[in-house]
C-alpha cells in the first residue's frame, strides 16, 4: 500500500478560488490532527503560493491559465505542491529581496508586497522550489508528536 493519499485540485487562475484552495487544505490538515495554529499556518502558506502563481506567473493565453495544487497526505505530515505553467522566476534572487520589515526603514521605503515567499518559508517546515516550465513550490509541514498523541487520546475518550 502506498504510504500517502494524494489529492489534486486544478484551479482556474482567478483570485476568487484562492479561498477554496486554502479551505480544502485546511480540511485535510484537520483530519491529520494538526493543531489549530498549524492549520492556520497551512492556510496562509497555501494562499501565498496560489496567489503568487496567479499573480506573477501568467502573461498571456487565458484559456490555459490554471494552477495545480497537489496534496500528499501522510500519517505524520502534509506535503503541498503548487504548480503553474507560466513564466519562471529566479527563486534565490527573489528570496534575497524579500524578508521581514525592519523598524528603522524610512516610511516611504516600506514595501507593500513581496512577503509571500518569506511567509511560506517562515510557516512551513520544509520548502523547495523547482523552476522548470513554470514554478513549482513544494512545502511540507509535520504534525508535531504531541499533537498526534493528543489527537489519539481525544479519539479514545
Amino acid at each position: 500500500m502506498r504510504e500517502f493519499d494524494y489529492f489534486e485540485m486544478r484551479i482556474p487562475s482567478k483570485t476568487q478560488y484562492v479561498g477554496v484552495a486554502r479551505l480544502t487544505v485546511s480540511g485535510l490538515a484537520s483530519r491529520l490532527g494538526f493543531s489549530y495554529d498549524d492549520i492556520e499556518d497551512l492556510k496562509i502558506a497555501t494562499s501565498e503560493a496560489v496567489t503568487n502563481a496567479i499573480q506573477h506567473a501568467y502573461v498571456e493565453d487565458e484559456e490555459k491559465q490554471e494552477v495545480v495544487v497537489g496534496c500528499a497526505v501522510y500519517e505524520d505530515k502534509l506535503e503541498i505542491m503548487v504548480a503553474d505553467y507560466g513564466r519562471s522566476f529566479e527563486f534565490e534572487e527573489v528570496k534575497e529581496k524579500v524578508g521581514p520589515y525592519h523598524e528603522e526603514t524610512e516610511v516611504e521605503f516600506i514595501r507593500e508586497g513581496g512577503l509571500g515567499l518569506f511567509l511560506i518559508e517562515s510557516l512551513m517546515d520544509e520548502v523547495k522550489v523547482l523552476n522548470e516550465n513554470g514554478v513549482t513550490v513544494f512545502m511540507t509541514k509535520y504534525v508535531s508528536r504531541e499533537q498526534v498523541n493528543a489527537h489519539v487520546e481525544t479519539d479514545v475518550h
Partner: protein
Amino acid sequence: MDLTVNIKTQQDNSILGVISGEIDAHTAPKLREQLLAIDTKSTNKAVLDLAGVGYMDSTGIGVIVAFYKSVIADGGELTLIGLSPRLKRLFDITGLSGIIHVEEEA
C-alpha cells in the same frame, strides 16, 4: 469569504475603520480601494479595528502598509486594534508590529 469595511469619523475627528471577514488576494483590492479613499488629511488619527478579521495573509499586510504610508504622509498616526493572537503573530513574523502600533483584542 466576504469582506466588509465600515468607516466613520469619530467625535474627536479621528477615523475608525471596522474591518470584518477574510483578507486575501480576492478581497484585498476592495479593501485597498476603500481605505485609500479615506481623506486622511482631515484627521491626525486613524484606527483600524481588525477584531472581525478571521483570516489575513500578505495581501492584507500590503494593503495595511499602503494605508499606513498614506496616513503618515499626511502627518497622522495609525493604530490597529482588536488583533487576534493569529493576526498578532502574523504582524510579529513580518516585523510589522515593530513599525505600526498594534493592540491585541481585549
